[in-house]
């Protein structure tokens, strides 16, 4: 079962293996100076996902809309930092592989939570929330485009 198929989890398993304080683990590839903005963007994205999940669990439509807006904003930043990482000189393939995998996890996690949120909006007959969530789901698909991470090792269905 992929993480995206189990939306009750708050954090992708791959992220659980990364330390909370990146700066205490100098041998992590993320600690290279150029990777720091990506790490920050990743942590923000993770925090937004947790917030969206909490808003959904508490069944609060306004917070849900706000959290999904912030998730989209964080997705844009993550995408931009991933692109910046790609253009960093001397970056290692290990760093890029890990970054691609994380972008993929975040895309799936965001899509899964937004779909759950839309289910909530449908069930509670909230068309305003539904429209906002639909828009956000489309934007997430666009900014975390599959081309960002799709390559032989990370194609869906071939995860280890």
């Amino acid at each position, binding site marked *: 079962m992929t993480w995206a198929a189990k939306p009750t989890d708050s954090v992708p398993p791959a992220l659980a293996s990364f330390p909370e304080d990146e700066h205490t683990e100098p041998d992590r590839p993320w600690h290279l100076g150029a990777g720091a903005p990506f790490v920050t963007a990743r942590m923000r994205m993770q925090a937004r996902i947790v917030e969206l999940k909490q808003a959904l669990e508490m069944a609060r439509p306004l917070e849900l809309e706000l959290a999904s807006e912030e998730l989209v904003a964080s997705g844009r930043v993550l995408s931009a930092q991933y692109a910046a990482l790609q253009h960093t000189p001397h970056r290692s393939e290990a760093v890029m592989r890990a970054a691609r995998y994380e972008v993929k996890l975040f895309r799936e996690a965001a899509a899964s939570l937004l*779909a759950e949120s*839309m289910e*909530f909006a*449908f*069930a509670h007959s909230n068309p305003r929330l539904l429209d906002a969530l639909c828009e956000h*789901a*489309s934007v997430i698909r666009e900014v975390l485009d599959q081309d960002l991470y799709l390559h032989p090792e990370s194609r869906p269905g071939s995860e280890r």
Partner: protein
Amino acid sequence: MSERNPDAAIPPGRAESSIAFTRAMGAVETRCAQIRTAIALGKLDGIEHLFQHAGNVWLAGRTACRHLHERGNAQSPYCVSARELLRSNGTEILKLIDLATTESTELQGILRDLRETLTRVMKEQFLSSPEPR
């Protein structure tokens, strides 16, 4: 789809997945009808928004269907017909994407990601396995 699912074990604060599923499928069917009309009239400007909306509400419906599947009896007539309807509507969106992209090559790039997402999701085990006869 007339038999109501009891929506066993609904998390606190959450509404019934069966209601969400029914409404989501209704929304998908409405969007598909609008897309068919737009294609027939050759009005392809902005059609990608209709597709994105159809795809997103279908994904919401699939989440609701999966919840029904997980919380209830997967082989109950309600769950079986819900999966059938979900598959049928997903297939319809994919057919319409194919139709629209033959009319406009520009739409191919715009709708590629949505098409790939829906195609991948349609292959999920709970959707792709044939129903017992």
